[in-house]
């Protein structure tokens, strides 16, 4: 090649204007073709259902007897329904418990593993142990925790009894039920976020730590002035993912409590599920889905606004 890059097109300076435009156009087409398979799938399985969901939310949907356009009636009915408001509130409470806990625990695990990186065996073993719950399906998580918290046979109950402390009936107590489901969720999700944080920690140039230490920075200064600012994109990514997961939580609630006791753990996704698949009120369920999407987007944008998209490094 003689140090010259291989070029499929003649050099721009010898091309007339129309060819230049044609090249740009071709590049755009090429780019579009590359993303087209993804766009097609995304459009079919995300965009179209989303649009159809919004459309359905404006109807009293009954395809056999005939659907009726009702405008915003489903939305108005939602905000008059105490059950929906309770589910919305539970979703916020759940997210408020799960998101910070997942991020903090995952970050602490990542720091721990980072500190152990000299001992490869210990580090790999601990990483596998921390990550393992994420490999399990939601049903396994729910059944495992239901048994762990069982008031008769549960291991957690046993520990309480061993230390002669009266054990709460976690899943039957309206005060404890939501935190108990949140705890199971934190156990489940922390491993994956830990891997994200580990990767981000690994990307921080070693020289920055050396300079900080030479400058006499304390541990907390290194943490807050070096590590955390440089991990912003990873934290934002984890924050967004965890917020979405927490707000859409469904399987573990259905399998651990069915939304009870009473409606103490009935979250938005469960409310939608009952309305769609048990009561077959598709219009109302679709409206609740749109509201859930709105709040998920709102929380995500809030996270982006607070943290910003870029790390301090770039």
């Amino acid at each position: 090649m003689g140090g010259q890059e291989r070029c499929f097109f003649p050099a721009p300076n010898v091309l007339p204007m129309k060819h230049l435009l044609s090249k740009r156009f071709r590049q755009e087409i090429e780019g579009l073709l590359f993303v087209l398979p993804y766009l097609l799938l995304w459009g079919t399985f995300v965009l179209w259902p989303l649009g159809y969901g919004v459309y359905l939310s404006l109807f009293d949907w009954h395809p056999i007897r005939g659907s009726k356009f009702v405008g915003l009636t489903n939305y108005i009915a939602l905000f008059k329904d105490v059950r929906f408001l309770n589910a919305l509130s539970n979703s916020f409470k759940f997210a408020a418990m799960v998101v910070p806990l997942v991020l903090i625990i995952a970050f602490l695990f990542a720091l721990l593993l980072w500190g152990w990186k000299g001992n490869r065996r210990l580090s790999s073993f601990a990483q596998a142990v921390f990550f393992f719950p994420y490999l399990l399906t939601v049903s396994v998580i729910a059944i495992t925790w239901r048994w762990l918290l069982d008031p008769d046979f549960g291991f957690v109950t046993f520990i309480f009894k061993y230390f002669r402390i009266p054990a709460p009936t976690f899943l039957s107590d309206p005060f404890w039920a939501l935190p108990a489901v949140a705890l199971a969720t934190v156990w489940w999700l922390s491993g994956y976020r830990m891997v994200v944080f580990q990767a981000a920690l690994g990307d921080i140039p070693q020289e920055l730590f050396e300079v900080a230490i030479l400058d006499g920075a304390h541990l907390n200064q290194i943490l807050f002035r070096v590590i955390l600012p440089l991990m912003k994109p990873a934290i934002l990514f984890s924050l967004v993912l965890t917020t979405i997961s927490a707000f859409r939580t469904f399987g573990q609630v259905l399998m651990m409590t069915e939304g009870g006791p009473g409606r103490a753990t009935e979250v938005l996704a469960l409310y939608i599920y009952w309305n769609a698949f048990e009561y077959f009120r598709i219009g109302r369920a679709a409206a609740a889905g749109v509201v859930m999407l709105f709040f998920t987007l709102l929380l995500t944008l809030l996270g982006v606004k607070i943290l910003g998209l870029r790390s301090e490094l770039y």
Partner: protein
Amino acid sequence: MKKFLGVLVGIAVSWWLVSFGQVVEIEFNTLFHEADAKAMENIVNLFQSLHPEIKVRLVQGRWAQYYAELRLSVIAGNPPQLGICHVNRLVEMVDYLTPLDASPVGNLLELGGIDPALFPEATWKAGQMGGHQYLIPLDTHGWGLWYNKDIFAAAGLDPDKPPQTYDEFVAACEAIKKAGYYAFHPAEDALPRKLRRAWEIFYYQMGGELFDPAFTHATFNNEKGLKALEFLVNIFNAYGWNVVGGNGYAQFTAGKLGMLFAGNWFYPTVKQSGVNFGYAPVPNLFGIPYTWGASHQLCIPLQPAGTPREVYLAAMKLARFITENAYLWTMTGGHIAANSKALEDPRLLASDYWKESGHILNDMIQKGLVRFPINHPRGSELENAIETYIELAVVGQISPAEALAKAEAECNRILQGG
């Protein structure tokens, strides 16, 4: 070349005969799982061995979303040709089912040779709506009293004489509690809907009704409803017969529980656990010894226009076969067959299940002591409203009086279209 073409034509004709001329393909969707699913699979396999001209695709195991899927399959124009419908769901599902006596190809009950006289009158009539028959009864299932004979003996009770009156029942519970066991669990695994069923049993035994006949308002917030709920709440609290959140199934199979209200589907589990168990009717605690129960029935979901007559007839042939051979259903699944001929089958009468529990549940059914769930287009929502507050009362979050008042208010809101 001619030979080759001849062979090709021969293959095509044979394929056409097999595909269109002889074998009719139908799909049968059920919501059954575990032992029930196995029992239905056995019956369908038997049918297949006797009727190779009908190919049945059996789809089972979906409980939670079954009715939604059935509706959506009708909407999508791709329904199964045979399905299952709980009798109390008819009112919700009627738009999605074929009227069997007025189908597009004629009266399927007559064409399929279904004789209504073989079924209990009340169960048969429960499958009617708007002057049409939509369902064919398969079974009746319900709750009974399971008790641990070894615990009875340890508590100084007669293992062959389970309690049947209020006084006997309370005395038995106290004796079992004193012996160091959980005395009684009224609601299987204590899920909200199970707690509601337990309360309904107590309330129905007092002669109570949940709603007025026209479903204009709730009628359970009264002295009887309160007494029934207080009794339920006290079981887990004041009486100390069990603990809040306790799983009756697990307690019983672990040999820690003296008595349990549970459905006939518990039989395979308890048998496998090795517990020395006995089975009795639900005791007469408050006047009429009612128990909670329901009925699975067969239905033909609404078929797309132009569905061939042969497909309807094949579905009816399978439906008739299932009801006539429902002894297999009872022996394996535990639900009591609705077809009287199936109930007389000597293989069923000689089975362990029948001797150990089936005949007792059948006795309750024949005496009309099994109360079916409410039948209303928004029945699921009404039940949810009731069970939500019953559970809160059981866990001590609100008082029984408050629970009934809140449940009543929510039910009335639902009944008024809210």
